[in-house]
């Protein structure tokens, strides 16, 4: 058996934008031919600016939305070919933690109902045993059994995120998509949640897709990193190689953008000139060339493909040749 748990092949998803009149509607290439694989027990960090399609990738992997084209294999099984019942069975293996701990919890449900709901749906709750399971989950994420009867509004952002994590863990999944789980949290709370995610991975042997826009957070958690821009992967590789030898100018500019909390670090920054372009009219050639400080004539004409730089590092850039 191979050690790959999740594999995406040529994953593509287009959306029809709203607009009036109809001729103003455009086709948005949210995800455009993305391929990668995640090994058992590792964390793949998926990085990019807002609107680059990283959340859509997360949703496609869990089949929360259907793809326009492409395949996702979970443990060797092509998930888009599964029937409804088979898919529901598979959902026990794959769960998601959402970005916003406020809108992702039903305000009218108590904590024990929120965490217990997946158990009910999957018929895993035996009377008496359910309560014990919920308490165990609460303890696992650093809350206590006395919280079970309360409602979401009684909790702070960090505690709510813990509840969201407990819900995701309820079915004992093997794979979790964490979609910007800490971006709305304060510094000290963020550290608590990041440490919790790390501990859970170690203790339960979880595999993560960790979606974020901040490379310093990705660096803390990830074994491998994929950098996305306009629906495409620009560079991917082991965390070490990406952070030590970034090849794509976009990766470099993302790294430069992170403010380092040390006044003695003097850096020359590669600052991108423009805001992100329109997704419905992606530029011809390399998608990054209008913002790239090193763009050449070739970048305007020809789109670079992901190329192997070494066994654990790929980049889609003409300069990387």
């Amino acid at each position, binding site marked *: 058996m191979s050690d790959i748990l999740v594999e995406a092949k040529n994953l593509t998803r287009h959306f029809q934008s709203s607009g009036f009149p109809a001729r103003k509607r455009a086709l948005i290439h949210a995800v455009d031919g993305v391929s990668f694989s995640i090994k058992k027990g590792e964390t793949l960090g998926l990085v990019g*600016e*807002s609107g680059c399609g990283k959340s859509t990738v997360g949703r496609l992997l869990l089949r929360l939305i259907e793809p326009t084209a492409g395949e996702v294999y979970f443990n060797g099984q092509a998930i888009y070919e599964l029937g409804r019942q088979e898919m529901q069975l598979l959902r026990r293996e794959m769960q998601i933690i959402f970005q916003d701990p406020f809108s992702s919890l039903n305000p009218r449900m108590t904590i024990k109902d929120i965490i217990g709901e997946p158990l009910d749906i999957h018929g895993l709750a035996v009377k008496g045993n359910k309560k014990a399971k919920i308490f165990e989950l609460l303890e696992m994420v650093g809350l206590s059994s006395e919280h079970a009867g309360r409602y979401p509004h009684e909790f*702070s952002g*960090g*505690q709510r995120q813990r509840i969201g994590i407990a819900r995701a863990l309820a079915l004992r999944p093997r794979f979790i998509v964490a979609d910007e789980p800490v971006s709305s949290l*304060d*510094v*000290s*709370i*963020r*550290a*608590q949640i*990041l*440490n919790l995610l*790390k501990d859970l991975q170690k203790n339960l042997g979880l595999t993560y897709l960790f979606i974020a*826009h*901040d*490379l*310093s*957070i990705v*660096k*803390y958690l990830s074994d491998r990193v994929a950098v996305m821009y306009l629906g495409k992967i620009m560079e991917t590789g082991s965390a070490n190689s990406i*952070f030590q030898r970034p090849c794509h100018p976009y990766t470099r*500019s*993302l*790294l*430069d*953008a*992170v*403010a*380092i*909390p*040390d*006044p*003695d*670090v003097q850096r020359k*920054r590669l*600052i*991108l000139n423009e*805001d*992100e372009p329109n997704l419905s009219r992606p530029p011809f050639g390399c998608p990054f060339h209008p913002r790239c400080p090193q763009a050449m004539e070739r970048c305007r004409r020809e789109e670079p493909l992901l190329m192997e730089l070494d066994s654990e590092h790929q980049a889609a850039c003409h300069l990387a040749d």
Partner: protein
Amino acid sequence: MALLEVRNLKTYFDTARGMVQAVDGINLTVERGKTEGLVGESGCGKTVMALSVMRLIPNRGKILNGEIIFEGEDLLQKTPAEMVRIRGRKISMIFQDHLSSLNPVLQVGKQIEEAIRKHQGLDRLAAREKAIKMLGLVGISSPETRIKDYPHQLSGGMRQRVMIAIALSCNPSLLIADEPTTALDVTIQAQIVELLKRLIKELDTSLLLITHDFGIVAELCDRVSVMYGGQIVERAPTREIFKNPGHPYTRGLLNAIPRIDRDMDRLDNVYGAVPNLISPPDGCRFCSRCPGHYEICHRKNPEPVEVGPDHLVSCWIYGQKGVTHV
């Protein structure tokens, strides 16, 4: 003399559940031509602090005590009419939420002109010219056409630039920026930081920067105050706070930041959460989260002690000369 000096400021909010001591006895100084950082997590009172200086506290809130000396005059003694002439002209503010801070049904040009015409008495044409100049200054390309855009036609980064243009259009001597980069992508954050850095130098404006991000503090600030539970727990020159942090909260925060420039096996946990400011505990407010607290910490709130040049720490343990480790 300092440009802005806040002395023993107390701003409380009267709520159904009790009196919220949002800002509780704060001293803060912004020197002319310098950037002062105010760092803290959400709910620590840093925005209320800024709004108090602007005298923009909503109805339920009251400034109970203190002085806000700006250019030698106490702002708390000013009439509302006098404050209108100070706001925007002498002190202006950039808000965190650029989407709700701009009027969605007015062209951005009109919104910049509004401030200019109000405070500088320029006519329509001259104000338009100045507005175009300001948009160019904050790095928006082809400002002559952009001036007719509505806020929804601009990206988040551009809206924040427009906010900065409005704030700086009347050459204020003090700019208060409340989390100016928080809702933005990292790449856009970097652009805004570079822009602020350039503008305060060019226009010779003093900046009070409110943020939770120590990375931005390291890049922009000359001096930092760390706020916790409505009070300032530490104040030091920027370099000093990073190299030699005193208060356990400052240390905890600094070690809780994932770093891109070094490998970290584990982040420091500052356990627990911020205290309730309705009836804060007696004694030190950080006490319940502090790794090394003593009996006195529960009883009495520590006074700031100077532990080095211009370095104040309010802590019973670390706030003593020579004590660096417990």
